[in-house]
């Protein structure tokens, strides 16, 4: 569906995407993960055949976006990061008018608008103005709108950012159903649970390049351990700083010292806790958990805040 070789995007002197290779197959759910400014959205805009490629090669449905932009966009659905709904129109008109841009006949768009309102549970709001909808409803309407042309490939740029947990789960459910229907999904997100829930395969981007690639499970295997032991110490534990404590347990696994706790990455978390106690250290709280994609993400892209 998507094939990128050495894909680049620059804005003046700034290089947002620095030569990435991506292959997305039909029917899979593919994720782009990365901190802000990693180049995810620039990549998405190139795949959406909106932003011209600065270098490298990009093929979508086997076509070149520079030549067949309109034909590619006709088969794509795009759910942008910020809702671009027409706030002056009601829910149904937003779907109807948008469908007309694809050159669909009026009767077809009408039918699909009704179907899609049903699909995203907005039928009762058909005549409501967009301004009167909640954030979750607007997001669902944007997704419904992106489906009006029955796309083979749906691009979702941070689909659930800013939504409450209920709304996120409703959206995930809808996206999962679409995937079952054979729609290829490409998702950018910085919610790791979302990526684990939805993506068959994903890449982690950082500063314009791909730093890791694989299924969520593969990535955890490759870049983290099976379990993580979290150790919390009291403020004045033996008068030692976290760094000093970290040195004492350094041989038990990879150790990360955070302001409030130590993380020890190991395949056996309980053994780590036992060893810590044997050494006479007395953490006030301990926790053993499975490694998550978030551990992988933070390891690969660092903990420093990126604005």
């Amino acid at each position, binding site marked *: 569906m998507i094939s990128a*070789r*050495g894909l*680049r995007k620059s*804005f003046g002197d700034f290089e947002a995407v620095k*030569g990435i290779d991506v292959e997305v197959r039909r029917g899979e759910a593919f994720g782009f993960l990365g901190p802000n400014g990693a180049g995810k959205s620039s990549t998405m805009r190139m795949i*959406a055949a*909106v*932003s*011209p*490629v600065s*270098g*490298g*090669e*990009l093929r979508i449905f086997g076509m*070149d976006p*520079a*030549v*067949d*932009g*309109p*034909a590619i*966009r*006709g088969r*794509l659905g*795009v759910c*942008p990061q*910020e809702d*671009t*709904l*027409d*706030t*002056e*129109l009601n829910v149904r*008109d937003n779907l*109807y*008018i*948008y469908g*007309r*841009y*694809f*050159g669909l006949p009026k009767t077809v768009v009408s039918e699909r608008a009704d179907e899609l309102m049903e699909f995203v549970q907005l039928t009762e709001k058909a005549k409501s103005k967009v301004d009167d909808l909640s954030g979750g409803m607007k997001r669902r309407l944007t997704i419904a*709108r992106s489906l009006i*042309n029955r796309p083979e490939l749906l691009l979702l740029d941070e689909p659930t950012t800013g939504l409450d947990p209920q709304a996120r789960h409703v959206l995930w459910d809808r996206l999962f159903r679409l995937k079952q229907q054979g729609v290829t999904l490409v998702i950018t997100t910085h919610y790791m649970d979302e990526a684990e829930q939805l993506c068959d395969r994903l890449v982690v981007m950082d500063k314009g390049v791909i730093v890791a690639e694989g299924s969520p499970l593969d990535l955890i295997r490759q870049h983290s351990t099976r379990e993580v032991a979290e150790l919390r110490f009291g403020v004045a534990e033996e008068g030692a700083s976290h760094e000093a404590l970290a040195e004492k347990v350094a041989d038990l696994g990879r150790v990360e010292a955070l302001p409030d706790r130590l993380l020890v990455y190991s395949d056996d978390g309980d053994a780590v806790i036992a060893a810590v106690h044997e050494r006479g250290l007395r953490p006030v709280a301990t926790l053993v958990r499975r490694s998550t994609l978030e551990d992988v993400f933070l390891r690969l892209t660092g903990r420093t805040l990126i604005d």
Partner: protein
Amino acid sequence: MAATKISTTTGPARRLSLSDGVRRQADYWRVVYQRTWRASVVSSFVAPLLYVLAMGVLLGGFIEGDPKVLEGATSYFDFVVPGLIAAHAMQTAVGETTYPVMGMIKWQRIYDSMLATPLECRDLVAAHLSFVLFRLATTCGVYTLVLAPFGVYGSWWGPFAAFASQLLVGMAFAVWVYGFSTRLRSEEGYGVLFRLGVFPLFLFSGAFFPVSNLGDVGAAIARCTPLWQGVNLSRMFALDHVIWWQAGVNVAVLVVLTVVGWFWAVSGLEKRLVS
């Protein structure tokens, strides 16, 4: 990493025909008009007729209608009406290509959503300008219909030719102001456009008085403005007092402005939204 090469196109870009692109947006603009026509009634129909009443009838009552001075008009009313309609066409065109364009680019971001579909920038510009043309046709058309019974027009074909020149001058402004809007980051720039562009043109391009009153230099400058070309055409056709070489120059200037402005408008939108 493999050597980077610029993606080579295998042929000319395959795109929608312009008419298909515009047709696909017709429903959108229909809805826009259904939503806004009530508000536009005052600015489009009531305000201009108040101008006609104040300038043409009440002020005109004090002005001697000498055809030699008034470019062939036998009354100030006959003189001012065709000029006013042309000036009004400019104002309508400017009104439809300032805040509405900025809104679609920046505030509601409707254009962004349209560009995610098979539509391209030129389709968006063409549809928006088609709507401007529709607005010009309805406002100038109603104006003409209302004033025709008052004996402004000197021939049966005069109103049609004057109407066409009003549409032309309106479109010449629409394309350039559209292009300006695509390049404007903040709406504050419109203050400059209105104060230093639209308002002086409205007053000094011969709509209210013969430009010869401005002196040789002033008149020469006024005759270089796009609005004067439209005012002059509209008046010559309305009064059936046509100087054909002048009409030819006026039409040529406005057509060239419109064509060049079209490309400027499309390139402006492309630079702004396709990056």
